[in-house]
């Protein structure tokens, strides 16, 4: 079974530029998550989708970050404009059904490492 796919693996941009990350979850997984992981820290949830609806975006900096999950499958996370403090690894994860106790295990992709100069 294929895992969570993310691209690109690495991205270097200058501050104030825009950047977009793409994620394709495991087939059949209804719930999709975007996390930010700063070096030396644990991942922090940015946004959670259930199919194509947003469940939790309380920790998403909405003035510069946006995300969408059209058609309830793959998803895009965008940063516009980027700041130096956005340098981090952006991880995508998916689960069968985040609302179900037996199906809420999250499987992670390899992430996109973003460097903002």
């Amino acid at each position, binding site marked *: 079974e294929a895992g969570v796919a993310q691209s690109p693996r690495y991205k270097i941009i200058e501050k104030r530029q825009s950047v977009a990350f793409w994620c394709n979850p495991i087939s059949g997984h209804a719930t999709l998550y975007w996390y930010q992981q700063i070096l030396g820290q644990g*991942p922090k949830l940015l946004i959670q989708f259930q199919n194509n609806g947003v469940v939790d975006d309380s920790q998403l900096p909405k003035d510069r970050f946006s995300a969408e999950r059209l058609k309830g499958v793959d998803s895009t996370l965008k940063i516009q404009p980027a700041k130096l403090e956005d340098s981090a690894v952006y991880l995508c994860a998916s689960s069968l059904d985040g609302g179900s106790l037996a199906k*809420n295990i999250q499987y992670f992709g390899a992430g996109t490492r973003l460097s903002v100069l």
Partner: protein
Amino acid sequence: EDQVTQSPEALRLQEGESSSLNCSYTVSGLRGLFWYRQDPGKGPEFLFTLYSAGEEKEKERLKATLTKKESFLHITAPKPEDSATYLCAVERWTSGSRLTFGEGTQLTVNP
């Protein structure tokens, strides 16, 4: 606010030297506690989920236990391939399936 504290921050063991990693948590209404392993340049890899105090789960050289305030990840006779960062995360009943992670324990096992 949910809090997860892992200790130690880093641990260096000799091959075969057993030890434990600690995860202390403060959460209102624990739904589940998760252990993940993360290798450099990769995403976290799921190891265990624990749902209630007293529960234990094992996988190869790893054993996870849960109390009402903390969880332990016991590593028995570790091998160099067990070297990784081990992350603990909690999920609360009222936060959907959002995971709140600790900062991890970086384990190095020397041959």
